[in-house]
């Protein structure tokens, strides 16, 4: 399986594990380069990568300038759902789009699990 295929499998499993609360997700690099995605029709995958990376970058700068340590996740609550950008190791981010009232505890837990899976794939490929 290709690297992108392996990452897409992780993303699909992540979405399934959240019971439908995550409606789309992507793995992007911190420079805005899209790596893999499972997104609803009509969502521009390149834009998700670019915006997710920008938001996470600004969050990182805020944490640094205000001495808050490393950013663990960035979440934007919208009236129709949330955007959660989480560093998953190296220079990668997991960007998740959720429904309006998701189970955030479960989502954060599954993000951690997905992050571990991403790291394993990266290590295997080295």
């Amino acid at each position, binding site marked *: 399986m290709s*690297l*992108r295929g392996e990452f897409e499998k992780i993303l699909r499993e992540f979405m399934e594990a959240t019971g439908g609360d995550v409606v789309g997700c992507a793995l992007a690099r*911190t*420079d*805005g*380069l*899209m*790596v893999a995605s499972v997104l609803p029709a009509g969502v521009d995958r*390149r834009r998700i*990568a*670019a*915006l997710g*990376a*920008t*938001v*996470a*970058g*600004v969050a*990182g*700068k805020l944490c*640094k300038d205000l001495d808050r340590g490393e950013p663990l996740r960035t979440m934007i609550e919208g009236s129709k759902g949330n955007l959660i950008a989480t560093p998953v190791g190296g220079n990668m981010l997991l960007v998740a789009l959720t429904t309006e009232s998701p189970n955030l505890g479960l989502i954060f837990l599954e993000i951690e699990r997905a992050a571990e899976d991403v790291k394993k794939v990266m290590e295997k490929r080295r």
Partner: protein
Amino acid sequence: MAEALKPLNTLVYGLCAGLWDLAGEGSKAIMRQIGRELYERFIKENVDRSSLERALESTRKIMAEQFKVCEDISYTLKGDLVEIKVSGCILAEATKMLMEKNIPPIFCPYANVFVAMLEDVTGSSHDIKSIEKVSERESLIILEKVA
């Protein structure tokens, strides 16, 4: 710095330094988008898409000969790598000032425009592997196909 280019370099320096100060690493994603915007608006319609070499050559001509943003651009294809040498860049002074402030060379418009062109023409994602100054007047940009 040529006097005529001083205002341009001053403005570009201010924009880039301010962006880096607020957005940090997020600036890389913003620059990638700026490269796409420049490519879509000013370059794409005149790119010869019949082969990668011709696409590179037409992009070189548009940037160096039509827009005159530098004296010359040369390129070499090495497998998944594209090496681009830019000489006589009109933003050299802004770049120097950014480097003096320890800001990484992520604001290079040539690199980001070429990435946008390569992604459009080949359909594959490309990464800016490195940007380095090789002499007083020349910079070497290395782009890599990643997926």
